[in-house]
């Protein structure tokens, strides 16, 4: 499969590019990273010198880069000064929680967003279409964190009824695993809803536009000419074709999703990588911040890779050698 091979190569080179960029951003541009750490931790001159040597920072630029790469490949992401443990351990604790949040949200967002968008597009020109568009534009203009604040206020303070903080009830003891997941599920509701409100709008707008463009294509007239039912025309012929540009656009979505996740985790104290990022900014714990950024960026690259492969599978016209 030459296409998969080519695309994998692109993925790998993108990862190398991101790693290098990360290196430049966190180690070179700010100058001496130890200085950054020293500033926030008030180290003595001796300690600073020792750290310099430990981190190989008294070598040339290129040797520093190689050391950096070597450490990465060994899973060494540095040492956190605020948590006093290797960064990799902190990441292992938190990444799963973020993954849970993102997966749940994406499922809801994509399915609901595309269905609503295609439905609105098929009713182009009618009232249900216009009102859907307006609702989507308003939702898309909302700051995610603010939606979170409103929901926290509504369900945590005003009406109540849903947990607004963390991933589990503190100090809870469960009789079985089902109870544990039920608790997690309850805590998942509001954060997911927050992410969903803004991001569904994205898919509604994109899939609606896509369907409208598809509806004006000649093969849709052929379908109509065949005397097919309206449902078959829209969902059998239009949908498949409209889905393709939506897939292409979802590259943008993945980037926005990650940004949204950070905001949601902050508002709901959801113990994931987003909250970790926020805390590391507050305490200027650069190794942690660096690791969060790197992992997030690589995850986005991998997600785009998967999307591209999916597109390749769905569109029979793609994959022909250029």
């Amino acid at each position, binding site marked *: 499969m030459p296409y998969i091979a080519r695309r994998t190569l692109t993925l790998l080179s*993108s990862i190398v*590019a*991101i790693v290098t*960029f990360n290196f430049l*951003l*966190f180690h070179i*541009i*700010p100058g001496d990273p130890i200085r*950054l750490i020293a500033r926030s931790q008030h180290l003595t001159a001796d300690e600073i010198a020792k750290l310099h040597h430990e981190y190989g920072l008294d070598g040339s630029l290129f040797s520093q880069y190689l050391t950096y790469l070597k450490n990465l490949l060994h899973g060494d992401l540095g040492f956190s000064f605020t948590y006093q443990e290797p960064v990799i351990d902190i990441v292992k604790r938190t990444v799963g929680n973020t993954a849970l949040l993102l997966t749940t949200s994406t499922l809801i967002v994509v399915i609901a967003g595309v269905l609503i968008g295609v439905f609105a597009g098929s009713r*182009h020109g009618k009232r249900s279409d*216009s009102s859907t*568009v*307006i609702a989507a*534009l*308003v939702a*898309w*203009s*909302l*700051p*995610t*964190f*603010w939606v979170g*604040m*409103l929901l*926290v*206020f509504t369900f*945590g*303070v*005003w009406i109540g009824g849903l947990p607004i903080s963390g991933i589990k009830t503190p100090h809870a003891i469960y009789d079985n695993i089902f109870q544990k997941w039920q608790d997690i599920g309850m805590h998942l509701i509001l954060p997911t809803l927050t992410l969903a409100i803004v991001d569904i709008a994205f898919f509604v707008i994109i899939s609606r*536009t896509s369907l*409208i*463009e598809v509806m004006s294509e000649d093969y849709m007239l052929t379908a109509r000419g065949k005397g097919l039912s309206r449902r078959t025309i829209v969902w059998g012929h239009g949908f498949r074709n409209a889905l393709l540009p939506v897939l292409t656009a979802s*590259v943008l979505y*993945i*980037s*926005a999703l*990650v*940004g949204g996740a*950070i*905001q949601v985790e*902050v*508002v709901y104290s959801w113990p994931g990588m987003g909250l970790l*990022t*926020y805390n590391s*900014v*507050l305490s*200027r714990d*650069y190794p942690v*911040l*660096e690791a*969060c*950024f790197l992992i*997030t*960026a690589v995850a*986005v*690259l991998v997600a*785009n890779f998967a999307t591209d492969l999916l597109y390749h599978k769905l569109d029979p016209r793609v994959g022909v050698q250029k």
Partner: protein
Amino acid sequence: MNDVTPTHPTGMVRQLWRLGLGRAGIIILIAVAFAAIVGPMIFPFDPAAVGADASSILQAPGNGHILGTDELGRDVFSQLLTGARISLFVGVMATIISTIIGASLGIFAGYYQGPADTVLMSITDFFLVVPALPLMIAMGAIFGQNLSIIILVIGFLSWPRTARIVRSQTLTLRERQYIPRARSLGAKNMRILRVNILPHVMPLIIANTILVVAGCILSEATLSFIGLGDPDRISWGSMLHFSFVSGAIGRGAWWYFLPPGIGILFVVLGFTLAGQALEQITNPRLAADV
């Protein structure tokens, strides 16, 4: 691009007005601009004036405070009006930087093509893929928190989208017949760019720019909420930041955390509506919607 697409700004505004969405967008923006410019001149309190004693903290609206007070007893309404200026200022400035860079690179890459194009597009694609908010956070944390840096950081992450769009359009225009003809008449490249290409790319740039402003304002708000805003300035994002960390939500101080968010919503909505309507005008394929 057909003859109906206006290239002159007044033509565009007129067409914008006719579209329902565009009209709503313009009205919102005028209202916000008015509030931002005139507001701070007429507000009753100094937004930085801290309350006299503990009883003035997180007061509900009343006692001359139209929107109550914050956790330090400062007047929320005054802060709201002042914050409008910063939010809009950062958004617009970042957009200007991003548009200048993005449009220039896009036209350059699309027109000259070749190796310069490949290199530029690789860089552009790289920044398109890197997730925006995490990068902004990282850069904000590293480079510091004053206003200029924030503007640069936000602008730096918005230019790729503009560059891509402008490049596509330039590529299309380049293939039009009058370009080789102009060249055979002896026109130099700069002249062709200025006279033949730029006027036809302008409407697209303008439509895109307005949408970019919306994004930049949201970015500034989010960065300030995270805590990376300029600590000496009040913006809507920073108001929300302080309302959050001071526990105003738990205390039900809706007058504190509702208005700034509503403000952001309206401004972003205004630009989004206007931008979407403009995109419809400059891209006839999207046809008339609302």
